[in-house]
């Protein structure tokens, strides 16, 4: 049941999708057993400019592999990934990644971590970049922590640094790999709403990987549900909930409850299947 939807921000004339994935498969050679492991198989997906797409699936369903292919970190075995019409051959300044484990450089202060992306892209020319870095730090609410080291910050604050680092590079596409997976439950809800606001404000196109059903519903314009063994898209669902959304505003919304029950069942089946196949 794959439904393609019109892009939210460009309803007048449907333009070409910003990300276009066709028949994507990734297989790995497993050295120990000599077998080939199929990480994902036959994935088709279009993501339009300005869309927030959440990718939901059980652990080991290949959703991270899928994101890594779009990021240009993993080469497709078969199939194509087009970003803005050009095939992805590696990482590029049009895409930035927010990692589950933050992936901050422990030897750099918050300021120097945020500028890391710009520095690697050799974009530290002139004076403007300092203001951009400072702006990004303030945007994620870390003003005053510019010269702190990551180890001095809580998990939530470290991920704010990760967000600022991604935003300051001004990518068109933000790839978020379970960005709140390692953050405590309370901070997780607060940051989920903040990420939502930031994305609505900046209009970025987002692929957001998660295994939280609530996160997938509350953030996504569409939810891509992955199944495992082999990893593939099970279904794509349009959430169709009014924004701004919050846990409180939607928890009695029949659409939210319907989605939650539906996804819960879909994932439950997947989790059981995964457990049995092991």
């Amino acid at each position, binding site marked *: 049941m794959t439904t393609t939807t019109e892009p939210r921000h460009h309803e007048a004339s449907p333009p070409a999708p910003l990300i276009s994935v066709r028949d994507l498969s990734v297989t790995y050679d497993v050295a120990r057993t000599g077998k080939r492991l199929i990480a994902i198989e036959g994935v088709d997906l279009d993501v339009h400019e300005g869309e927030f797409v959440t990718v939901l699936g059980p652990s080991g369903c290949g959703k991270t592999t899928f994101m890594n292919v779009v990021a240009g970190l993993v080469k497709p075995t078969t199939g194509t990934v087009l970003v803005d019409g050009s095939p992805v051959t590696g*990482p590029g300044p049009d895409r*930035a*990644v927010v990692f589950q484990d933050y992936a901050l*450089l422990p030897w750099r202060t918050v300021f120097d971590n945020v500028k*890391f*992306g710009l520095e*690697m892209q050799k974009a530290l020319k002139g004076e403007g970049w300092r203001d951009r870095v400072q702006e990004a730090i303030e945007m994620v609410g870390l003003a005053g922590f510019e010269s702190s080291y990551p180890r*001095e910050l809580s998990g939530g604050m470290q991920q704010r640094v990760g967000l600022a680092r991604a935003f300051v590079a001004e990518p068109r596409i933000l790839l978020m790999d379970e960005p709140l997976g390692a953050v405590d439950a309370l901070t997780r809800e607060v940051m989920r709403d903040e990420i939502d606001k930031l994305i609505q404000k900046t209009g970025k196109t987002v692929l957001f990987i998660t295994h939280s059903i609530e996160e997938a519903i509350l953030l996504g314009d569409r939810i891509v549900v992955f199944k495992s063994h082999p990893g593939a898209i099970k279904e794509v669902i349009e959430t169709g909930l009014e924004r701004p959304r919050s846990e409180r505003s939607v928890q009695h919304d029949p659409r939210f409850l319907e989605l939650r029950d539906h996804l819960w069942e879909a994932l439950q089946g997947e989790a059981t299947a995964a457990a049995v196949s092991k």
Partner: protein
Amino acid sequence: MSTFLASGPNLGRSGGVGAWLAGLSPAGKAGVLAVEVVVMLVVWQLVVGVFGWINPVFLPPPTAIWQGFVELVSSGVLWPNLLISLQAWLIGFVVAAVIAIPVGLLMGTSLPVDRVVGPIAWTIYATPSIAYQPLAKAWFGFGIGPVVFLVAISALFPILLNVAAGMRTTNPSIIRAGRVYGASRTQLYRSVYLPSTVPFLFAGLRQAVVLATIGMVVAELSGSAIGMGALIIKSVNTYQTDQAFAAIAIIVAWSVGMAQLVTLVERWVAPWTRTGRR
């Protein structure tokens, strides 16, 4: 030693002596150490000097060791021996570092180099340095040469193996972050691999300080006419055990002092490894 223990994880129950020690300020920790040393010296003095339970020729009391130290200084015996030892130590240590750091970096970077050099390095590292001592005499004669050799070969491998391990264990997530932002190979080395190896380098240097001192004394203990090791042998052979203990104390002070110096340099070069928020 108590400083090492206090910085480790406190796995015991909360409360009690462990918690009290862990919560101490740096000044408090120094105070505890000072009390420990004073108590030990007083007990030592009582057992040997006052009660005479042990023949002071075998174990002179602290006051006699102090007198031995004064004699060593006033007779002019100490300086030439100390200077020649420190000279050999410093030359050997620098030679070790100059060889070990680049080779370690190469080993950590290149799997073929690691496979070829690694087993040899571990084999030489696993050989007790005392086994090389007679050979060193044969190869380098009776001057400072064999001492420099034993210091260098003792200090070389802890530095080399730690640097190689540091390169290899660079957090793959940070490497991915570098790649996402388009870091070149050179940028990855300069901005990711090298900084993440720095704490390993200093751990290796600290081990190397202790092993270099052992190598120095081993080389000087037999067949040397000059040096701290020779001074210990000569003092023992003439029943001046107080002077032998004074010489040992000076060697220990040098070793501990150099290890502290390495830590100080690390705090200056790599402030992010400092624990706590101080």
